[in-house]
């Protein structure tokens, strides 16, 4: 792989996104130190080039991730398991798919060598270059091409390198893929299309490597949007998406690619779509999230129990559309309180859909207004990420206010 392709403006630093945020910042700190030493030698000690905090600890405090990944208990139902992180779980799912379905192909930018997040490592060697291949750099082409493969009945697994770059393909997804079956009276469909894409904040991604665009697609009948919280969930949900007879978008929380490790079955298995999971039962308040944020609210639930004696019911939504209204409403009818949290901006975010539906269905059960703890209505900032994200303190504070309402 050429250095020039690593350093293209859009992708710089992202090959390293698979590294932890901490490692990157240590590297940055070393560079800053060396820079200052060189400046002093050049006699520019008092010049404006010298950072005022040179040598101090404050500016280089290690940035700790805003969550702690909590693995689920190992599944006994699907045979032998193996320790996998999230990207390895994805590879495993893709491996299973290509083994089982001779029509299945994987394509997108840079998937041939293994992908910028290592999700397709080894697959080209194993299955051949006609089945795992690079496309030109063109998202509308990737999705359009994938639709065409699916129209013939073959299985198309397309990768969009970052969810932030899915927008050129928006027309193909919304106007074409989602409507193929409906508009043709079920003569044609592209149900065997799955689009996978890295999603969500990563500590340093800024505007264009951190986005969570699920709300844009939630407004589009005809597609399914699925987001896993863990390696075990990722493999099962991805396999379900691939087998599902409707075009699916599978967003993979990139911050979990390496950080999330658990025991994952080696053999294929599926987890049903459009079924939310109650991962912890409780009685006082329902917390709903998806992807990385599930781990944030898990911690919030612990804090609530310890500090406030509050019992939280935690729901991982898993499928954004069509979403599992019944599970969420059943929970709110029990608890009377609902807090929804997502990284994506507040206005028009998917929490608004959940909130609106729940107040329609469960109005008389509500003890407090429904709370949404989300990103601000700004583009995703780079240096301000720790302030932007709906971290456990913001969620905890919102919870506390709801309990005291």
């Amino acid at each position, binding site marked *: 792989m050429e250095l020039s392709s690593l350093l293209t403006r859009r992708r710089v630093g992202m090959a390293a996104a698979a590294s932890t945020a901490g490692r990157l910042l240590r590297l940055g700190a070393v560079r800053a130190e060396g820079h200052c030493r060189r400046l002093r030698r050049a006699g520019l000690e008092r010049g404006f080039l010298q950072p005022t905090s040179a040598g101090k600890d404050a500016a280089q405090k290690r940035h700790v991730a805003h969550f702690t990944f909590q693995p689920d208990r190992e599944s006994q139902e699907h045979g032998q398991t193996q320790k996998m992180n999230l990207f390895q779980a994805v590879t495993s799912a893709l491996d299973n798919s290509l083994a089982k379905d001779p029509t299945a192909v994987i394509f997108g930018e840079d998937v041939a060598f293994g992908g910028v997040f290592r999700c397709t490592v080894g697959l080209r060697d194993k299955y051949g270059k006609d089945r795992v291949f690079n496309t030109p750099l063109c998202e509308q082409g990737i999705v359009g091409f994938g639709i065409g493969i699916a129209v013939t009945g073959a299985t198309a697994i397309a990768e969009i390198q970052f969810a932030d770059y899915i927008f050129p393909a928006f027309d*193909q997804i919304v106007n074409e893929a989602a409507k193929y079956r409906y*508009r043709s*009276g079920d003569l044609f469909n592209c149900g065997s299309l799955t689009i996978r894409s890295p999603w969500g904040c990563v500590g340093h991604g800024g505007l264009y490597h951190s986005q969570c665009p699920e709300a844009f697609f939630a407004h589009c009948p005809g597609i399914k949007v699925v987001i896993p919280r863990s390696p075990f969930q990722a493999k099962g949900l991805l396999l379900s998406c691939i087998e599902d007879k409707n075009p699916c978008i599978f967003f993979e929380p990139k911050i979990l690619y390496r950080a999330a490790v658990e025991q994952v079955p080696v053999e294929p298995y599926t987890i049903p779509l459009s079924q939310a999971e109650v991962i912890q039962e409780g009685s006082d308040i329902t917390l709903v999230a998806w992807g990385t944020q599930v781990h944030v609210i898990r911690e919030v639930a612990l804090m609530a129990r310890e500090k406030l004696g509050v019992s939280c019911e935690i729901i991982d939504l898993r499928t954004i559309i069509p979403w599992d209204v019944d599970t969420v409403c059943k929970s709110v009818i029990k608890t009377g309180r609902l807090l929804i949290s997502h990284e994506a901006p507040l206005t028009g975010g998917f929490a608004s859909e959940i909130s609106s539906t729940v107040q329609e269905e469960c109005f008389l059960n509500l003890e407090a207004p429904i709370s949404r703890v989300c990103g601000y209505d700004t583009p995703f900032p780079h240096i301000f990420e720790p302030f932007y994200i709906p971290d456990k303190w913001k969620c905890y504070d919102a919870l506390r206010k709801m309990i005291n309402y």
Partner: protein
Amino acid sequence: MAAAVSAASVWRQSLAQAALLLLRRPGVRGLARSGRISFYMTNYGEEGTHVGSAAALDSTDLVFGQYREAGVLMYRDYPLELFMAQCYGNMSDPGKGRQMPVHYGCKERHFVTISSPLATQIPQAVGAAYAAKRANANRIVICYFGEGAASEGDAHAGFNFAATLECPIIFFCRNNGYAISTPTYEQYRGDGIAARGPGYGIMSIRVDGNDVFAVYNATKEARRRAVAENQPFLIEAMTYRIGHHSTSDDSSAYRSVDEVNYWDKQDHPISRLRHYLVSHGWWDEDQEKTWRKQSRKMVMEAFAQAERKLKPNPNLLFSDVYQEMPAQLRKQQESLAQHLQTYGEHYPLDHFDK
């Protein structure tokens, strides 16, 4: 003799299509104007591109069209009844009344359902060709689009993917001079669409789109090589859109009657073929008169029948969004049913199947 027979049948196809489309001429445009069909798009002047290319394909080659390729579907014997059913959105429409007129589709005839967004079919056609290559199906894909749609990003995407991924596809551009009111001088400044092909590494040819045999020969050779070599071919067929863009358009607003008449009278694909057949003694005035009368009758009868039929059951508003109906959508379907029980008088239920 075989050539004469096949030429005559090609000719008949063209005439049948001309008859169908005859009914959209000024004077008979009343059908749309009177609201019996909401909308229509004619194919006048481009029949040579449809029939010439369709005749050169295998019947199982997959067709992705834009919206002005009805002749391709007609060549594959799609019945008039179903053309009309789609235009009327009646209960015989295989598309279940979901789309505007001329958005035909037929699975058995390998004609992918038309969609309104332009050029979206181009990268899709490439994907389908890739799958056909992998399946060793001895099939190609043909993708039709106009010179206007060729300006879309999806066209660039499709060409580039077809070349890099070595797909057996024919890109067939109908350069008919206009994209609604926009003439080619405002659509591009280079040497048309064919000249773009080499930029992508695609073998390209420009043909006289109104010479049905030229179109046939180019398509035939492109098909042969696409299968043999797994590479794309670009055919730019120069033709002219004699009709308006659609029934919502009046092209006298942006072009002269003289210009239109030139093409209608001096360079019409059907006339050129007719002269060719007549000069060989394979066709004559009497056959012409008889066939015109016959096809006009067929078309009018199909219209009348289609008009009498009911529209599909309103429940079909809700199906096929997904393969299975989601719970929330079923609730919405029930809520409409309930609503109609109380307020049904305000809805045109009489025209719909119960």
